[in-house]
């Protein structure tokens, strides 16, 4: 119930194309859905996030689409650039014991944008 399923595992896109990464969850207690970008040797960096009362959020070239009834959310990267090549993790936040927020991560998608 605490899992977040992410697909695809890897994605190759041409420069200027649209990258789409999908995630699904089951636990309705999740209350926040961030996406993290990770470059090799670095920690995950928050890219964009959404709350379940919103169906879409856009920040620059990055858009999250959220379907609460289907328990699915996706990341769209418009006009993909070689600098976007990284591993992307979706995550879901749930309030843990003691009140802190715990993140449950998907398995990640390795995105390669070819020039």
């Amino acid at each position, binding site marked *: 119930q605490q899992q977040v399923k992410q697909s695809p595992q890897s994605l190759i896109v041409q420069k200027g194309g649209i990258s789409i990464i999908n995630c699904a969850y089951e636990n309705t207690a999740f209350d*926040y859905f*961030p996406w*993290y970008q990770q470059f090799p*040797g*670095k*920690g*995950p*960096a*928050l890219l964009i*996030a959404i*709350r379940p009362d919103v169906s879409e959020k856009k920040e620059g070239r990055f858009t999250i689409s959220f379907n609460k009834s289907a328990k699915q959310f996706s990341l769209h990267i418009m006009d993909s650039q070689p600098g976007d090549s990284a591993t992307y*993790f979706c*995550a879901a*936040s749930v*309030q*843990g*014991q*003691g*009140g*802190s*927020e*715990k*993140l*449950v*991560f*998907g*398995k*990640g998608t390795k995105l390669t944008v070819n020039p």
Partner: protein
Amino acid sequence: EPEVTQTPSHQVTQMGQEVILRCVPISNHLYFYWYRQILGQKVEFLVSFYNNEISEKSEIFDDQFSVERPDGSNFTLKIRSTKLEDSAMYFCASSRTLNNYGYTFGSGTRLTVV
């Protein structure tokens, strides 16, 4: 931009040895976390820490693990007797408030147990 700082960046240790991984969270943050990432796999929650005590820990965080905030600025993860399967990237993270909805992660410590 404020950062979470982790040291060392890479640590090699022999099986059975104790290791201490160090983190300096962002100064006005109140919630602290450790996560780990085995090579090529997803990031997994280990433990959360607030008000000088553990808020929650995962099944991974057994008696071999402990956390401490010894001096008000550092936040440490100790592995008492390392095993080969402890080899992973360990990430420290902090957040300012409850329901802040977003952590800041450090760059990680790569622990290699040989």
